[in-house]
């Protein structure tokens, strides 16, 4: 797969080369995959990325530390505050900022709310890719509720710029805990519907079971993470392996599946949503209603020279950031380790040999977000 373009093979007339993307409804944005098709079977697949490249990391080197937070939001635009956390954690580590317990819990609540939002978007678009229209509308209505809760507190829906060094920017809205509890009740009712429409549907079974099998060894070798890795039977979750924020205080499980096929990835995401609801239920009870939302942070953020890597488990996997400081108020280097980017590497592996329709199902089960992949 070293060639960038796919040349027709001389003397082979049964292979058709098609461009899937960058303007294709099922590529979740701007992925372009050049496919060699032999009838319906894919013989070769070369993914191309970079259509949404914004020079993210270089811009961040030219911004001061608080300014970078606003930029990190723009990576994985469906999971909002989740992108801010690794950078905030890394800088807090370098400066030794103490984060109050309540701020940690509020952060974790937003983190899990956005995980639910992101998985809802995934579910809707995955079902849209498989051909069902209705679940897409349902999940987006539910996501609206989450975004409404976030907007009440943070002022923005998708890119809230809410976390800051030492805690969160402002205290939560007085209705926040009640809204969240109400939403969780609503969501638990809705999850039953989604099980009927997605996990139990025989059509989904036919389209996903045994399709795009990713073995445990292959998954580890390719460096995938998140639900894709856990669907291949590896119980690795940053929330358990390297706990951060309020995750040590709450009980939750890491759902894994040994199958590694598309259905397993669907199933793992579903179980993660149940775990998110469980975590949020605990946090609604645990979080003190009043108290500090922000610890003491220096007015000018100037971490001492050195470097720090912190990772969080966002909706797609391990989202890490390496911050290198040279002692000034701007980072010397910011390197993001994107989960969706790493997960996308298995596309050629899984596509080759699959049917063309399967490739759509496989791609939607990887849940790529091109804001983060192209950065």
């Amino acid at each position, binding site marked *: 797969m070293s060639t960038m373009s796919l040349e027709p093979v001389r003397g082979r007339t049964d292979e058709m080369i098609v461009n899937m993307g960058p303007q294709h409804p099922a590529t979740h944005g701007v992925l372009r995959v050049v496919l060699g098709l032999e009838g319906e079977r894919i013989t070769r697949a070369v993914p191309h990325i970079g259509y949404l490249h914004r020079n993210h990391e270089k811009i961040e080197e030219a911004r001061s530390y608080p300014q970078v937070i606003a930029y990190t939001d723009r990576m994985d635009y469906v999971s909002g505050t989740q992108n801010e956390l690794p950078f905030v954690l890394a800088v807090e580590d370098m400066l030794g900022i103490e984060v109050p317990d309540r701020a940690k819990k509020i952060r974790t609540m937003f983190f899990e709310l956005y995980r639910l939002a992101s998985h809802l978007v995934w579910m809707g678009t995955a079902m849209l890719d498989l051909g069902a229209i209705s679940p897409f509308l349902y999940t987006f209505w539910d996501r609206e509720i989450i975004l409404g809760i976030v907007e009440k*507190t*943070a*002022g*923005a829906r998708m890119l809230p*710029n809410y976390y800051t060094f030492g805690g969160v*920017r*402002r205290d939560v*809205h007085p209705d926040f805990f009640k809204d969240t509890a109400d939403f969780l009740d609503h969501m638990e009712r809705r999850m039953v519907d989604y099980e009927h429409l997605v996990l139990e*549907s025989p*059509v989904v079974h036919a389209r996903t079971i045994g399709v795009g099998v990713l073995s445990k060894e292959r998954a580890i070798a390719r460096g995938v993470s998140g639900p894709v890795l856990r669907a291949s039977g590896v119980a690795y979750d940053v929330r358990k392996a390297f706990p951060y924020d309020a995750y040590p205080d709450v009980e939750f499980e890491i759902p894994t599946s040994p199958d590694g096929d598309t259905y397993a990835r669907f199933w793992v995401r579903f179980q993660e949503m149940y775990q998110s609801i469980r975590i949020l239920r605990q946090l609604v009870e645990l979080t003190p209603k009043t108290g500090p939302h922000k610890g003491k942070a220096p007015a000018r953020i100037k971490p001492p020279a050195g470097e720090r890597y912190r990772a969080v488990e966002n909706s797609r996997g391990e989202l890490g950031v390496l911050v290198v400081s040279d002692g000034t108020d701007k980072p010397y280097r910011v390197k993001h380790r994107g989960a969706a980017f790493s997960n996308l590497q298995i596309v050629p592996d899984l596509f080759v040999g699959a049917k063309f329709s399967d490739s759509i199902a496989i791609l939607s089960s990887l849940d790529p977000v091109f804001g983060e992949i192209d950065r």
Partner: protein
Amino acid sequence: MSLLQEVWQAVKAIGTGMATVHKRVYEDAPTEFYPYVKPDLPPVSVQSLALVENEDGSERCIVCLQCERACPAQVITIERHRNPEGKGFLIDRFDIDLVNCMYCAACVEACPVSSIVTIQDFEMSTYDLQTLKADIDFLHEQARRARQWYSPKFGVELRTEDGRIEKAPPEMQPGGLAELLKPAEEVDS
């Protein structure tokens, strides 16, 4: 028999799915009729920026350049000169490029006098992007037309019918659960 069972399971699952979908016919659509009915946005919602003047029409902004420094997208351009009579500075130029602004509200966080604020006017669609390169008059006009605005320092402020500016009542103030809960507890006890 297992084949028949499988078929029965599939038929049952399709039936359940269809029933699930049909259930929604009887639910009300949560559609917002946007152009006819304006959405009720929370007061902290960052939709646009405005520059508030004092009640007497004097400038609230002290031209400290904090917002210009805080802006991640670097869309704020301020020029100033020293006030010949008295202290402080006067504004020569205060531009915000609302096209490139990413509405992170970092400038509002940074402002020490709550001069630059967030407002709920999101209807900025235009045929000409140049009209969104806001100068100081544009920003003042935005503030004059706003009924309420938010800044972290002063909270939500309202413009009353007779043009006065006053702080909104506590039930309209977002955030700060601690502040809100304290008086209520005192009343209870």
